[in-house]
């Protein structure tokens, strides 16, 4: 009993430490607000602490300093928290109506409760649609109005190992039939064609989304999710059938349903698998990261998901999604100033984020004259030409439906759900939500 009491005491002391730590950091930011009473104060919260995200921190810090120089009457005060704490704090602040003037949000499903609760102000007056990559603004729009301006963008190309392709005389596939031939050749030779960590489920969802896009066009899946269409659309069933076909061909690494994405990535990095679909956040591993052997980096290439014969989608449509975006609070007393700074920040960020932080911005990038790695330049060029970006299905859906979708993805890949059941279950989940 004594020991137990002692441990309890210790843990209480630890908890106390946490609470006190939380107090001190918020106390600091309040102190600094008093000193500049003659200036207009714009409060901003972001999630790139100097310690863990130095590149992003420096960019934002520089932009703020330049902006303040150009606008001497504005004082921008930042409060910085790391990702998880940031999410927590934003929830608490919004519950007590104390959101900062400018802050960071995530897309669709995450943002929706805030917009519905009237926390964010619409930014349609400052959003210049032509500056953003097609589709990115939509992810932050409710009823056609953007409520946040995106800063980051990730798309998912198919990475492949050039050496394995060369060894078996394979060409980069342009059509789905060619792709199936590649898969078959590799599988026959005993090489794992595709690595996939489907324990995490959203990974398999990317494959399904690409097939749905190539067969039914970008609208079909989106419509099924926003309830102007049905998930039992023939194109969506067809896409599920193609997935089952791939599984039957042994296209995916053995035991994919039990592998996490990180484990699956290992197969690609160790050259045990020829192809891998993943977001462009993987790019540093194939270009700049000092931890990866240069020999391996030289072997990695990427291609766009091939077109499906008779399908409605084209090759320049991508599955992907914007990362974080900037919002302006509805409660803010300095809305106009905040909006002006947001549009300035988004523009400047777009110019610098790839080169300095390896983060692809949601605004179109001019790559001429920069010394970026070739793969970045190629991806950015493809992005500039992108006709559409379909936001990850599980991000578009509400948490409950997303869970059904993700479970069904696992069941479809694992053969427990037939393509018909797969679409039916999701249709039911989507229909019962409204």
């Amino acid at each position, binding site marked *: 009993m004594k020991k137990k009491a002692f441990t309890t005491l210790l843990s209480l002391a630890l908890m106390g430490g946490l609470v006190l730590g939380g107090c001190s950091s918020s106390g600091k930011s309040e102190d600094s607000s008093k000193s500049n009473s003659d200036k207009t104060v714009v409060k901003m919260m972001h999630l790139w602490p100097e310690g863990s995200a130095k590149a992003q921190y420096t960019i934002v810090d520089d932009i703020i300093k330049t902006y303040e120089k150009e606008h001497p009457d504005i004082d921008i005060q930042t409060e910085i928290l790391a990702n998880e704490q940031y999410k927590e704090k934003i929830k608490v602040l919004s519950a007590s109506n104390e959101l900062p003037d400018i802050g960071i949000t995530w897309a669709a499903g995450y943002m929706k409760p805030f917009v519905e609760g009237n926390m964010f102000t619409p930014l349609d007056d400052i959003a210049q649609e032509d500056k953003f990559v097609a589709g990115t603004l939509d992810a932050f729009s409710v009823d056609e109005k953007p409520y946040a301006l995106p800063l980051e963008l990730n798309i998912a190309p198919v990475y492949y190992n050039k050496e394995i392709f060369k060894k078996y005389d394979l060409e980069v596939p342009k059509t789905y039939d060619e792709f199936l031939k590649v898969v078959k050749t590799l599988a026959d030779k005993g090489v794992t064609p595709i690595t996939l960590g489907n*324990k995490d489920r959203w990974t398999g969802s990317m494959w399904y989304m690409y097939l749905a896009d190539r067969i039914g066009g970008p609208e079909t899946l989106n419509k099924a999710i926003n309830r102007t269409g049905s998930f039992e659309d023939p194109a969506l069933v067809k896409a599920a059938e193609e997935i089952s076909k791939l599984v039957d061909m042994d296209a995916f690494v053995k*035991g*994919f*349903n*039990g592998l996490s994405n990180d*484990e699956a990535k290992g197969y690609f990095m160790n050259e045990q698998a020829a192809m891998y679909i993943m977001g462009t956040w993987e790019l540093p591993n194939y270009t700049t990261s000092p931890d990866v052997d240069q020999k391996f980096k030289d072997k990695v290439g990427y291609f766009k998901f091939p077109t499906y014969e008779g399908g409605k989608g084209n090759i320049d449509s991508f599955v992907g999604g914007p990362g974080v975006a900037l919002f302006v609070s509805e409660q803010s007393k300095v809305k106009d100033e905040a909006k002006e700074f947001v549009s300035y920040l988004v523009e400047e960020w777009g110019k610098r984020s790839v080169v300095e932080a390896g983060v692809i911005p949601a605004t179109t990038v001019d790559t001429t004259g920069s010394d970026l790695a070739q793969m970045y330049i190629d991806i950015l060029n493809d992005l500039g030409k992108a006709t559409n970006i379909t936001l990850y299905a599980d991000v578009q859906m509400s*948490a409950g439906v997303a*869970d059904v979708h993700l479970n069904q993805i696992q*069941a479809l890949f*694992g053969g427990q759900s037939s393509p018909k059941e797969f679409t039916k279950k999701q249709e039911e989940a989507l229909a019962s939500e409204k």
Partner: protein
Amino acid sequence: MKNVMSNKFVITLYTLPALLLILVLIYIPITLSGYYGLMDWDGIGEMKFIGLENYVTLVQDKVFWTSTWHSFQLAIFSAASLLLYLGISLVLASKIKGSDLLRKIYLIPMLLSSVAIAQLWMKIFDPNNGMANKLLEMFGMENTPLWLADPNIALYSIFIPVIWQYAGFYILIYYAALKNVPDEVIEAAKIDGANALQIAFRIKLPLISGVFKVTIMLAVVGSLKYFDLIYVMTGGGPNGASEVMASYMYKEAFKLNNFGYGSAIGFGLLVICLVMTWLTSKLTKSNDDVQF
């Protein structure tokens, strides 16, 4: 001293800290979680009172009952593996060579954290490069199992590290109990001509039956609320094939933001655990407790 201890005020004072702690850390949270179970609450916004709706859903929820069945399978399995641990302790407690070293070896898994064990076994179960399948291939097996990826065996694959994880703990308990059996009794039996098996079954086991009952209870209740290895190794997947009650509760409350329903599951878990505790103690109760 006697005077102090008979003073009601002092007794209250001395037990107060412990009482407060147990109230604040255990009983109040339990009551609260039962109360939250009556709410429609996403964990952030406002709570809405919906009466017993969550509990009605819970009783009809197929996923919940499947996870309950999985938890019970684990409970039955853990209780059965106690016999294995008991056998090992009987061997270790008889004075064989190297029993000291062996005992320490069995204890090692207990010193590892659950997450480390999970990571270790995930590597072993890797379907292509893992130790388990490499061994099976060495013996010429061709269609090696998918372990955690196969919904038919994922749950049972996790049972293996669970036995391994708790071996040290139960062996230690049994070992200590067996060492407590007085030598005189055993010597007397030997003089009467009993062999080693007879000593084990007729003398040692009856004498430690009290300890055995306690371990059954520990194993059953521990299994019913089991969470850690399952959460790290499969997260309840693939497609819910290895979901247990605790992992289902976690998923509903924290992943799907249904705090109200998650609390209801937690409360259901509590009720099931209480019933099972009562049942096991009832079933293992006997009046002939041996004194020595």
